[in-house]
C-alpha cells in the first residue's frame, strides 16, 4: 500500500502550493457555496439517510445468511458453517459522503474462496434476493467487465459487486487496504475490489475531508450542468473528479471550499496534459499486477488525460477521454476559471458557473444516432451496448481526419414521445481552425460511420429489431424533442445571420422557416433519405475528379514542414480507404438497412469570405454504401461543411481583447502555458509529433483504448465486453511525474 504521508510531512507527490488558510472573504464565499449546494437539493433528507442505512443493514444480514447456506451446501461441517462470513462494503459517492438524493449505492460483497461468483453469487444469492418481497428490479450482469448484481431494496438502488477472496473465512474486521488480499484472486475480483480500495485511499490522502466533500459536491454538480460528467462518453466520472479535487486539496491543504473551487479551475485549465494527476507515488508492489507506466506499457502512452488511482495496482481511471472530450473539458475549465475571477471581483455570482451548457446552439453540424428495438427490455440492453461504444465513433472520426475534425458527444440520451421504442444520441462536430490559406481538406466520414455501425451490430446479445441509424443534421434541423418543452429557443441575431447563408434548393424556396419545417417533416416521416430534398442541381467543380491523392507512400520524419506532413496524412487516408473497401462489399444481414449518413450539398461560390479557411467534406466517386447507389447521380456532389465556429461579432472581439488583457496580468503558476489546440501551425505540428511518434503505434493505441472499459462502468451496461488479456509486464520503476514545480515563497493574490 502506498504511503499516505511522505516523510516531509505533506500529503501528495509534491509540496503544497500554498499553506494559507481562508480569509474573512473566503469564509463568506464558502458559506455562499454551501448554501447554494443545499438550495440546489444536493443533500439527502434524514429520512432517506435512515432508509439507506436500514437497507444496507438488511443486505448485510442477507449476505451473511447466504454465505452460511453456501458453506453448508459445499459440504462443510456445522462448526465451519457457524464461522462462515461475508461482508459488505460501499464505495463511490455514498462512501465518499457526496451522494445526493436518489443516488445508487455502490456496494461490494466480499466472500470466501468456496463461494464462487458464478455458482453462488449469481445463482444462490440471486435466488435469495428474488424471494425477498422488498427486493425489486433484480438485474444480474455476470458477463460485465466488472460483474454486477443490480436491484432495489425498499426502493433504494443497489449495485452489488462481488470479490471472491482466497480466504477460507472472511474476518469481520477485514481490512481491504491491505495489498495481500489481492493475492490468488481472479481479475474480476481485483477490479471489484478496486472501487473500495481507491475510494478509501482517496480519503486517506486528502488533508481535510470536509473541505474535500464540499468541493467535490460542487465540482460534480458543475460537471453535470456543463455536460462533462460521463465516463462512458469519454468525459469524467465520479472517481476521476474525486482524484482531481483531492489533488487540489493536497496543493492547498488549508484552503476553504470556495478557494478550492477557484483553484481547481485555474490549475486544470492550465494543466499540461497528458502529464498525469496523481495523489501518491506509483509503487510496483510485489504481486505482479500491472500498474500505469507509459514508458513501458504502450497502451498507457495514448492516454489523453491520465488521472491515476491511488491504490495498488495504480491505473489510469480516465482512459475513455479522447482528444475531443479533453478539448471540451479544457474549454469548460477555462470558462469556469474566468467566472471565478469575476466572482472574486464581485462581478458575478455562483449561479453563472452552473448555467446549463447550450449544446444544441454551439455547433453548426451534428450527428444524430437513432436506435430502436422491439420491446423495452431489448431497448434497454441495446441502449446500454450502444452507449458504451459511442466513444469509439468519436475516436474513429478523430483518427480518420487526423484530429482535424473533433466530435463532442452529448452525455445524455433523448426519447421522442411520437416514436416509442426509440432512443436518440447527439454529437456536435467541429473543425479545428488553422491559419493556413489553402482550401481546407475535405473528409467523407460515411465509411467510418458504416464501420461503426457494423461493429455495433455485432452485439453478442443482438436480437431481431435492434437497429441503429446515424444521420447528419444541421443545427436548424435538430428535432424539437431535445429542447425543454419541445420548443426551440429563439435566437434573433442568429436567425438574421442564418438567412444570409441559406442555400437555394431545387425543391424548396430560400425561406428559412420553410426549410425548418421540411427538416421536421422529414424526421417525422422517417424517410430513407431524410435530406433528399436538399440536393442541388449544379455539380461542384472542385469535386469533379474526387480527392486527389499524392503518389508518395514514404514515412515522413517529424522535422519536415507542415505541407509535407499533410501529404503524409493523405497517404494515411488512402490506405484507410483501401482497408475499408472490402468490408463494404461483404454480404451482411444488415444489407437492407438504409443509408446511414446523408449530406447536404453546398456550392463553393456561396461561402462567406471569412469561411475561406473552413474545410469541406465530399464523397468520392466510388460508392461505399449499397443504398448510396440509389442516388449515384448526385452522390459525388454531396458535401459536408464543418465550420468550427460562427465568426465573432465586433462586440465579441472587444470582449476577447479585454479578456486577453486580463489574462496577461495574471500570475502564471506554470513556467509556460501549454499551447492551445488552435494556435499556430508550428505548435500544431509539434503536438502531432508528440502525440503520434509512429503510425503503427497509433492503431495499437486506438485498439487498446477501445478494448478497455471504464473503471466505474459497473452497473448500467449489459455489455459482453471482450476480456482484456495482457501479460503482466516487467515490474515498472517508481514513476515520479509532476507538472507543478516547488511552490513560490508566498502565494500571490490574483
Amino acid at each position, binding site marked *: 500500500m502506498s504511503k499516505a504521508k511522505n516523510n516531509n510531512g505533506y500529503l501528495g507527490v509534491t509540496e503544497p502550493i500554498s499553506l494559507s488558510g481562508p480569509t474573512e472573504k473566503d469564509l463568506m464565499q464558502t458559506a455562499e457555496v454551501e448554501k447554494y449546494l443545499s438550495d440546489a437539493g444536493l443533500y439527502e433528507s*434524514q429520512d432517506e*439517510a*435512515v432508509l*439507506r*442505512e*436500514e*437497507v*444496507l*443493514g*438488511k443486505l*448485510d*444480514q442477507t449476505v451473511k445468511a447466504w454465505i452460511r447456506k453456501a458453506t453448508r451446501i459445499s459440504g462443510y461441517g*456445522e462448526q465451519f458453517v457457524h464461522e462462515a462470513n461475508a*461482508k*459488505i*462494503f*460501499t464505495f463511490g459517492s*455514498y*462512501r*465518499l*459522503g457526496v*451522494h445526493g438524493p436518489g443516488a445508487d449505492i455502490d*456496494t461490494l460483497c466480499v466472500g470466501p474462496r468456496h463461494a464462487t461468483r458464478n455458482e453462488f453469487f449469481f445463482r444462490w444469492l440471486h435466488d435469495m434476493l428474488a424471494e425477498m418481497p422488498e427486493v425489486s428490479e433484480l438485474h444480474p450482469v455476470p458477463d460485465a467487465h466488472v460483474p454486477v448484481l443490480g436491484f432495489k431494496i425498499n426502493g433504494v438502488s443497489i449495485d452489488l459487486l462481488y470479490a471472491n477472496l482466497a480466504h477460507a473465512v472472511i474476518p*469481520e474486521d*477485514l481490512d481491504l487496504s491491505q495489498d495481500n488480499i489481492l493475492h490468488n484472486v481472479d481479475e474480476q475480483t481485483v477490479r471489484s475490489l478496486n472501487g473500495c480500495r481507491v475510494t*478509501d485511499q482517496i*480519503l486517506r490522502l486528502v488533508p481535510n*475531508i470536509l473541505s474535500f466533500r464540499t468541493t467535490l459536491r460542487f465540482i460534480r454538480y458543475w460537471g453535470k450542468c456543463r455536460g462533462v460528467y460521463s465516463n462512458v462518453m469519454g468525459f469524467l466520472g465520479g472517481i476521476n473528479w474525486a482524484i482531481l479535487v483531492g489533488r487540489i486539496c493536497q496543493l492547498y491543504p488549508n484552503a476553504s471550499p470556495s478557494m478550492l473551487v477557484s483553484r481547481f479551475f485555474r490549475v486544470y485549465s492550465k494543466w499540461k496534459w497528458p502529464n498525469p494527476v496523481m495523489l501518491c507515488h506509483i509503487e510496483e508492489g510485489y504481486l505482479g499486477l500491472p500498474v500505469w507506466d507509459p514508458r513501458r506499457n504502450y497502451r498507457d502512452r495514448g492516454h489523453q488525460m491520465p488521472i491515476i488511482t491511488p491504490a495498488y495496482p495504480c491505473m489510469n481511471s480516465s482512459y475513455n477521454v479522447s482528444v475531443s472530450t479533453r478539448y471540451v473539458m479544457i474549454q469548460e475549465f477555462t470558462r469556469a476559471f474566468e467566472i471565478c475571477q469575476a466572482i472574486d471581483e464581485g462581478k458575478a455570482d455562483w449561479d453563472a458557473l452552473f448555467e446549463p451548457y447550450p449544446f444544441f446552439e454551439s455547433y453548426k453540424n451534428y450527428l444524430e444516432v437513432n436506435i430502436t428495438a422491439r420491446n423495452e427490455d431489448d431497448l434497454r440492453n441495446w441502449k446500454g451496448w450502444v452507449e458504451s461504444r459511442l466513444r469509439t465513433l468519436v475516436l474513429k472520426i478523430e483518427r480518420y481526419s487526423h484530429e482535424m475534425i473533433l466530435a463532442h458527444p452529448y452525455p445524455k440520451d433523448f426519447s421522442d414521445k411520437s416514436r416509442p421504442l426509440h432512443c436518440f444520441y447527439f454529437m456536435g462536430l467541429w473543425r479545428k481552425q488553422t491559419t493556413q490559406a489553402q482550401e481546407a481538406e475535405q473528409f467523407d466520414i460515411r465509411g467510418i460511420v458504416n464501420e461503426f455501425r457494423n461493429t455495433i451490430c455485432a452485439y453478442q446479445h443482438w436480437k431481431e429489431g435492434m437497429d441503429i441509424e446515424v444521420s447528419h443534421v444541421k443545427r436548424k434541423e435538430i428535432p424539437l424533442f431535445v429542447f425543454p418543452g419541445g420548443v426551440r429557443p429563439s435566437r434573433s441575431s442568429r436567425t438574421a445571420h442564418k438567412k444570409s447563408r441559406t442555400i437555394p434548393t431545387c425543391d424548396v424556396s430560400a425561406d428559412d422557416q420553410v426549410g425548418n419545417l421540411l427538416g421536421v417533416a422529414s424526421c417525422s416521416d422517417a424517410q430513407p433519405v431524410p435530406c433528399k430534398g436538399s440536393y442541388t442541381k449544379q455539380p461542384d467543380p472542385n469535386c469533379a475528379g474526387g480527392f486527389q491523392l499524392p503518389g508518395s507512400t514514404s514515412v515522413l520524419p517529424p522535422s519536415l514542414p507542415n505541407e509535407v506532413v499533410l501529404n503524409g496524412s493523405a497517404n494515411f487516408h488512402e490506405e484507410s480507404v483501401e482497408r475499408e473497401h472490402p468490408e463494404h462489399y461483404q454480404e451482411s444481414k444488415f444489407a437492407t438497412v438504409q443509408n446511414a449518413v446523408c449530406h447536404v450539398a453546398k456550392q463553393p461560390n456561396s461561402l462567406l469570405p471569412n469561411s475561406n479557411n473552413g474545410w469541406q467534406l465530399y464523397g468520392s466517386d466510388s460508392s461505399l454504401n449499397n443504398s448510396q447507389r440509389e442516388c449515384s447521380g448526385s452522390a459525388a456532389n454531396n458535401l459536408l461543411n464543418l465550420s468550427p465556429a460562427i465568426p465573432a461579432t465586433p462586440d465579441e472581439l472587444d470582449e476577447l481583447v479585454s479578456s486577453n488583457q486580463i489574462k496577461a496580468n495574471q500570475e502564471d503558476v506554470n513556467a509556460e502555458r501549454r499551447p492551445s489546440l488552435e494556435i499556430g501551425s508550428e505548435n500544431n505540428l509539434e503536438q502531432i509529433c508528440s502525440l503520434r511518434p509512429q503510425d503503427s503505434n497509433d492503431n495499437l493505441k486506438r485498439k487498446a483504448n477501445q478494448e478497455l472499459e471504464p473503471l466505474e462502468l459497473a452497473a448500467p451496461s449489459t455489455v459482453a465486453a471482450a476480456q482484456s488479456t495482457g501479460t503482466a509486464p516487467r515490474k515498472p520503476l517508481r514513476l515520479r511525474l509532476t507538472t507543478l514545480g516547488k511552490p513560490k515563497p508566498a502565494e500571490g493574490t490574483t
Partner: protein
Amino acid sequence: MAAATTAGAGAATPQPPRQYKLAPQSELRVEVLPDAPLRVRLVTGTAEIFGTELPPEGWVPVPPRSKIAIFTWHGATVELDGVSESEYTSDETPMVIYVNTHAILDARRARARTAAAQGGDKEASQGPRVIVVGPTDSGKSTLCKMLLSWAAKLGWKPTYVDLDIGQGSITIPGCISATPIEKPIDIIDGIPLEMPLVYFYGHPNPSINADVYKVLMKELAKTLEKQFSGNAESRAAGMVINTMGWVEGLGYELLLNAIETFKANVVLVLGQEKLWKMLKDAVQSKSNIDVVKLHKSEGVVLRNSKYRQRTRSFRIKEYFYGIANDLAPHSNIVNFSDVSVYKIGGGHQAPRSALPIGAEPVADPTRLVAVNISTDMIHTVLAISYAKEPEEIISSNVAGFIHVTDVDIQRKKLTYIAPCPGDLPSRLLIASSLTWYEA
C-alpha cells in the same frame, strides 16, 4: 460400599423401577425423554436436585426433556420409575466448590443485613450482585438455580435476573426478566411466575440489534434499583444474574455492559480460563469486583442449535399450554383498528464498513416503527406492553404475550390465543421474530 450400577443408554424396552445407592457427594445424572414419563423418589438419606431437596418417601414426576442431577451430600438411596434417555452416576462434581461459594455469598448477605439494620450507607447494605458467565453448555443456568435455592432455603429473598434471551428460564425466550426467589425452585414447576418483571427484546439473538438489548438492560436495572431502594431485605439479599453463552466479540462486549449496568460485584466464570483472564483484566481498575473461576460440571449436557431451537419452541408452548399440557389458552379475535403493533429498533443496522467514511449512523437503532398487520405475523408472538403511549414502549415492561393464529386481511381481523380470557390489558403490541407452529 456397594458400587453404583449403570443402566444402558437409550433403553427402548420398559424398565422396572430401579434403585441407586449414592455415595456421599456423588450424583445420579438423568436425561428424560420428551414423551415418556419418569418419576423419582427418595428411599433413604437426603438428596437434592439443583439445590432443591427431594421430599422423603414421595414420588416426584420429572418434567419431559429435563436433564437433571440428583446430588447427595451425605449419601442416599433413590429410585427411578419409567424410561429415560440416559442415566448414570458420578462421584466427580464441583459441588463442594459451589457450596463454598454460596457460603461466602451468604456471609456477605448477613453483613449487608446487619449494615442495613445499623443504618449503614447504600453500598454497605447492598448484598452480593452475582453474575454467572461462561460459554454455552457450561452449566450457568444450573449454578444460578443452586445459588438461588440455597439462599432461599436459608430465608433470603434474592432476585434472579435472566439476560439469556435465547433460552428464557423465567418466561418465554426473547425477553430479559427478573423475579424474586422466595423459596427453593420447584423441581416440577421451575421458577414461579407470580410477579416477574419482563422487558421484551423480541429475538433470540442479540446481534440483531445490540443497542436495543443494551437499552432494555438499562431499563431493567433501573427498575430493580428502585425496588432495592425501597426494600432493604431485597437489597441485602442481592441478585443472581444469568447470561448468554456468547462470550466473544459482541457477546463479550455485552457481558462487560451487563456487569457495569447491573453493578455486579461478583463475577463467577464457568468453564473457560481465557474468559476469566479477560474479565479480570477488564475490571481490575475496579477494586470492588471479584472475578472467580469455577469448574464446570462434567455432567453438563451439550446441546446443539437444533436442540436449542426446539427448546425455545417448547418454552413458548408451555407459556400458553402449561408444562404438562394442562392449561387451556383462550382464542380471541380483535379488529386491526383496536390494536397498534410496533417494532423496536427499525431495520437492521448497516455495518460501519458500509457507511460514509467517518460518519456516525444517522438511524437511531432504538427507534420505534409502526408495523402493518399482515399475514407474515401468523405464528409469531406479540408482547403486550404496559406503556400508555407508544413512545414509552421501549422503557416499559410487558404484561404478557399472545400468539397470532390467523390474520384476515379482508375483514381486518386478527385471531390470537392468550393465557387469560377477556380483553387485552393494552392495545400497544410489540412485534417479534419468535415463532411457534402448533404440531
